[in-house]
């Protein structure tokens, strides 16, 4: 039985399951490297303008809620824990715990999106969305608008990644449920875990760069 499973888990182009496993992991890491460059473009733009307008950026950042940002971060860090535990559970053949942990990861991801949606809603009400209704007291209106442009671009792109991750977790949970993934064929889960942790890492940098600049 286990022999046949290992057979079916192996694609034609690979010599062994080990080789296939290594190729899958390498492919994901290369993808994540391109993602680093994807976010890198916006981060460089952020760095250039923050360097040019330090004071305007400090003042604009003070309009964001540190409490929300901290809870956002904590939620994502917890979701990374449930993710590694889901992979571990599946590798040990614990099918139902693995499904439960994947659903927990998806739920935490949704929690993050709801929190962030609430923040966006507050910012919309406070006229902090760049455009013709943008309002900012004092002489730093243009600079603050630039900060909020970068804030919405960076967090929007990040939230988009979280949405993809949540969908991925639900698909994976269904695959484990239908036994298309199991203790021998867990690579899809492991590789998706790498993606989820990457999204977590992006937020680990966005949080202090957007919410915690300038003395509070």
């Amino acid at each position, binding site marked *: 039985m286990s022999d046949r499973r290992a057979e079916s888990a192996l694609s034609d182009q690979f010599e062994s399951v*080990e*080789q296939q496993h290594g190729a899958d992991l*390498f492919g994901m890491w290369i993808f994540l490297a391109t993602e*680093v460059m994807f976010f*890198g473009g916006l981060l460089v733009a952020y760095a250039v303008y923050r360097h*040019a307008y330090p004071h305007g950026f400090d003042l604009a950042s003070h309009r964001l809620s540190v409490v929300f940002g901290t809870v956002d971060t904590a939620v994502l860090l917890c979701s990374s824990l449930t993710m*590694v*535990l889901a992979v571990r559970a599946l590798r040990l053949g614990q099918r139902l715990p693995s499904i439960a942990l994947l659903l927990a990861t998806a739920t935490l991801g949704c929690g993050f999106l709801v929190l962030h949606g609430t923040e966006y809603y507050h910012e919309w009400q406070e006229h902090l969305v760049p455009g013709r209704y943008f309002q900012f007291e004092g002489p730093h209106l243009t600079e603050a608008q630039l900060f909020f442009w970068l804030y919405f671009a960076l967090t929007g792109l990040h939230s988009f990644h979280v949405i993809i991750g949540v969908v991925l977790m639900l698909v994976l949970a269904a695959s484990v449920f239908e036994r298309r993934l199991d203790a021998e064929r867990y690579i899809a889960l492991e590789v998706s875990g790498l993606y989820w942790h990457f999204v977590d890492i992006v937020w680990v940098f966005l949080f202090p760069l957007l919410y915690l600049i300038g003395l509070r």
Partner: protein
Amino acid sequence: MSAPIVAIKVYLKVWGALLLLLALTVAAAYVPMGEFHLPVALAISVTKAFLIVFVFMEIKWGGRLLHLAAIAALLWLAIFFVLTFNDYLTRDLPSALVR
């Protein structure tokens, strides 16, 4: 090639450390440090990222190829930053970008 199955305790410890570092980075934002705000915040973020990459993303147990891919990502990001700032910090800029 595949990473060993690690005890849950290891993951819980890393998770605890990540939450502690989160508390630390928030606390640091309220300490008057002048110019040192950004370096301290970034140092804490790098430590958190390192923990996630090392244990959660299993780079600790990964082969050389994976190490290379991870380092390449950082190297290219560094080139991006260094070459961009090489320009912005040394060239005559339109008045809007000068402090």
